[in-house]
């Protein structure tokens, strides 16, 4: 029982960076842009967030820096695909290579120029990032540690997911964005500012990805800078969007499930059956591939990709 509880808690922790990445990508795809640069934007956020926290000793500044870095990555993507109508697949991939490159580049640059040859977040931030303790609530057995004893990022992620869900489903702006994602021509004819809203959503999504990256660099390695801390999470997030059927709130559940797959190898009782570690590591990717195949076989209209996703909108060609 105790092991199971620990497993659930660890799943939530491992799933949180995925959650940010997934919400970010949903914001992109709902506006009609399949952004394969999630990994890159997360990496940029990881570097900017860590370095800002390292230098300013202020968590809020770190978060803002991560958000801004993700947004800058998204801006490059937005300019190229929205205004210059470049191929979305290739642009996104380039953003990933560029983002991961620049993040590791600056990381190593800072390492070389540091006095101790290692970078560690100041105590104050690590304290702020440790698990929250809510009097009474945290002390409830089982439910307390399961619900009320995580670090601030986890709650921020859930809050972001809920807010984005409300934004996309219940606000005029969000409904307009979805209209653009389905049929930009019709949305344009109805008087929606297609280009502006696309820029807004892509950049908002990028910023959210950036925060997910900050989680990877600031929490996963215990506050010590490591290269490649995002390590493929961005790609899983892109696939998770399908698992979550383009809904930010479903993404909460989806990313925690996938977080569970990521850490299963540490919790699965070895006494029952010994499976090589490599198979556990493969699991999230195999499941994602299966989800891809199954959703494509089912072909349900309702829970599917926005119709214009991946296709650039050229106003004078309808």
């Amino acid at each position: 029982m105790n092991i199971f509880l620990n497993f659930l808690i660890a799943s939530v922790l491992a799933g949180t960076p995925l959650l940010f990445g997934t919400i970010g990508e949903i914001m992109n795809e709902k506006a009609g842009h399949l952004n394969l640069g999630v990994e890159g934007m997360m990496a940029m956020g990881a570097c900017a967030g860590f370095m800002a926290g390292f230098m300013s000793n202020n968590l809020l500044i770190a978060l803002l820096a991560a958000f801004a870095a993700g947004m800058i990555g998204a801006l490059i993507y937005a300019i190229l695909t929205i205004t210059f109508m470049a191929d979305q697949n290739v642009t996104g991939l380039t953003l990933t290579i560029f983002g991961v490159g620049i993040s590791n580049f600056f990381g190593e640059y800072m390492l070389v120029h540091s006095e101790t040859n290692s970078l560690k977040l100041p105590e104050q931030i690590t304290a702020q990032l440790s698990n929250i303790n809510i009097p009474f609530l945290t002390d409830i057995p089982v439910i307390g540690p399961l619900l009320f004893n995580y670090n601030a990022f986890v709650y921020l992620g859930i809050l972001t997911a809920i807010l984005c869900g409300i934004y996309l489903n219940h606000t005029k702006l969000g409904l307009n964005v979805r209209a653009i994602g389905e049929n930009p021509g019709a949305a344009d004819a109805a008087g929606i500012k297609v280009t502006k809203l696309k820029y807004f959503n892509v950049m908002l999504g990028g910023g959210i990805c950036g925060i997910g990256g900050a989680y990877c660099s600031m929490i996963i390695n215990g506050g010590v800078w490591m290269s490649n801390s995002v390590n493929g999470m961005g790609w899983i997030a892109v696939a998770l969007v399908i698992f979550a059927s383009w809904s930010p709130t479903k993404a909460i559940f989806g990313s925690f499930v996938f977080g569970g797959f990521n850490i299963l190898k540490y919790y699965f009782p070895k006494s029952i059956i010994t499976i090589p570690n490599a198979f556990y590591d493969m699991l999230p990717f195999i499941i994602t591939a299966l989800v891809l195949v199954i959703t494509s076989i089912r072909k349900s209209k309702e829970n599917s990709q926005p119709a214009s996703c991946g296709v650039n909108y050229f106003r004078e060609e309808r």
Partner: protein
Amino acid sequence: MNNINNKSKQPLMRTVKRAERSKMDILKLRIIAFVLALFAGGLFILLIGYNPAQLYGTIISGAFRSEMAIQATIKFMIPLLISALGITLAFKMKFWNIGAEGQIIMGAIFASYFALFHSNWPHFLLLLVMFVAGFIGGGLWGLIPAYFKSRFNTNETLFTLMLNYIALHVISFLRDGPWKDPGSSGFPKIARFNANAHIDKIFGVQFGWIIALILVVVLFIYIRNTKQGYEINVVGVSQATAKYSGMNVKKIILRTMILSGGICGITGMIQATGSDMTLAASVAGGVGFTAIIVAWLANLNPFGILMVSFLFSVLEKGSSVMQSTYGLSTYSASVLQGIILFFILGCEFYIRYKFVFRSKGGVK
């Protein structure tokens, strides 16, 4: 009054199609974009406090300063060139094969089986078998997403991507278990190949470079002058047209992806037996992704790929010299590659479109 009204209706800037540009113009555009990218990269170097001219100089001299440096540059180029050629086939068909990385790994695994367990076979027979095995391994790994794409229209971008990670963990499975070198202490690893399974050297570089050059010519002809190459082009432009003209689209997708994955698989074989001399988890090491950039920059033209992959390997080799001279990370190569492609992607817009700005005097 009229004037004001018109102004508020007309956007500040709009996009219109332009007349087709000549090949010369397109080439000029790309060169301009490349130069701009170098400037942007220079700006980046300035920002981190170095002299751009000096660093660019280091890259060039680092790649060519000695015979050994040139050989190392060519060594970087071989896998990049071959896998970019493989990707080109898929991309021509608008099949977004992001899975070169996994196909390289699978090819390497298949080929390594023979290098590890049949190293007593005659040298050239062994190399030939490994070559074919590499092709089959990569081809099968490319066939899986192709099958689901043609059958259920499964998103190939994500599927091929997932296969990359699965392939990577297959290596770690083999390394930790069945193929673990009993003689190694500490971290588990796969044994070094017997010398009989090494690729021979020609002019000091493993003969992978000859295979690569042959493939450039073969693919150029295949895409341009054969029926199959023509079919790939048609499917890429419009699947509906291909179907209407009686082509078997499914078959074309499957066949092309076997070839595309297979060529990437050859990369894996050459990398494992020509450079690493063992099966390492880093056998692909990001080449599969960089190759996509190379293929795209070269506009999917085999001879263009030859040039671009040479340029990129100069960058890679140069950046490693930059690391030893200035202590700058080798990731500077990916940053520069990214910047170059960003600019080329941007310039492609001007091939087909142009911006029209609102004229100051209102409507003429």
